[in-house]
């Protein structure tokens, strides 16, 4: 009976197994790399909104505090999008004929809210709460980036679970004094980790075991 396989099959057979594993790993790795790079989260992408609202102008230019509009951020899960009445506190007199602001005026006249598109849209199975983060010294800029320099809003961070966990596992790397939470120009000091450890103790941040438990964010 003739040989069914040539002699080279002795090498090719195990080599093909290795090659298949490598190729599979490469595909999975590639997909993970795409995911990590943040193309899925529309990171850095500006999203069309009914009014081209500029945080740069209102925050850097005019010095308006985040809480003037996002009034709920210290008390509730959501920071709150201001009602049109808040825009009208100033825009009843300022730029009150600008065509750009017509959607604001029409919303004020009719009582129909402006339909903003959420930029930081977490999956519905994540129970994020702004108030606790603000109360423990997580600055607005830590998650939202340099909003005071954004003409149009975009998300600055990947908002992925591993990104959340990076801070939940090592909060001392990111915490700042509570009075600096809304200071958009705050820069971490050179001894951030040391300061962070003090703040973790001072603000009674829960231990890692709790912060990285599933039920903290998924319930």
């Amino acid at each position: 009976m003739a040989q069914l396989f040539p002699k080279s099959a002795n090498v090719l057979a195990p080599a093909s197994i290795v090659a298949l594993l490598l190729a599979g790993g490469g595909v999975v790795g590639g997909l993970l790399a795409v995911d990590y790079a943040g193309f899925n989260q529309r990171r850095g992408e500006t999203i069309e909104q009914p009014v081209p609202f500029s945080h740069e102008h209102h925050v850097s230019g005019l010095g308006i505090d985040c809480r003037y509009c996002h009034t709920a951020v210290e008390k509730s899960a959501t920071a709150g999008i201001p009602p049109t009445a808040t825009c009208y506190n100033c825009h009843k007199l300022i730029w009150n004929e600008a065509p750009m602001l017509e959607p604001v005026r029409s919303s004020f006249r009719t009582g129909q809210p402006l339909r903003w598109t959420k930029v930081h849209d977490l999956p519905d199975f994540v129970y994020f709460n702004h108030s606790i983060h603000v109360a423990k010294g997580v600055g607005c800029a830590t998650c939202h980036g340099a909003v005071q320099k954004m003409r149009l809003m975009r998300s600055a961070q990947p908002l992925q679970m591993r990104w959340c966990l990076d801070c939940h596992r090592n909060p001392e790397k990111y915490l700042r004094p509570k009075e600096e939470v809304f200071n958009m120009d705050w820069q971490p000091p050179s001894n951030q980790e040391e300061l962070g450890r003090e703040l973790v103790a001072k603000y009674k941040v829960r231990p890692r075991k709790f912060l990285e438990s599933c039920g903290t964010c998924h319930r």
Partner: protein
Amino acid sequence: MSSLSRAPRGAAAAVAVALLAIGAASGCRQGMYNQPKKKPLSESHFFHDGLSARVPPADTVARGWLRADAAYARGIGPDGKFVSTLPQEVVFSRELLLRGRQRFDVFCSPCHGREGNGLGMIVQRGFKQPPSYHIERLQHQPIGYFFDVMTNGFGQMSSYASQVPVEDRWAIAAYIRALQLSQHAVVADLPQRDRDALAAATAATVASPAAAAQTEPSR
């Protein structure tokens, strides 16, 4: 023999399906990301006005929010006039003034300026200039008057009742009193420590105006 050759083909198909599934999972959002539930401010296609949150019937009072006490809720005393002292629910303390300053800087300073002179940034950009708190008419207004203006608005100023809760409005009113005092205080009113600092600063100015300019505290 035939069963042997089918097994690898089945395995290859399973691997291909798994890879496709990974690709699909990373490329698009699944149902769990956007669940059929409503979060604050989200849109609804069920109600005709497009809002997921319902407006409560007129005159609804949430539990614990009945403001039957006119002095606390409206700044009006039993005689029908504005109260001239803080209502009994508000405890006067250093913390109250600090809270008042912080809330004043967030909500009032854009127009009234941090010193309360009515020259805030929004006024510089064209909003109607409010009167300075330091004019005689406002100096003699009872504290309930300031609470009332914050609650109901005045002239071009909108009501801030929805942005600033009652207790914070009292803190701000108390801080406005402190601001008024600050602009009309005499040196003898200062505590000894501040008087010493002032004397040192004055001496430095006389000795070297340039050095004094450098040590002048920045706001």
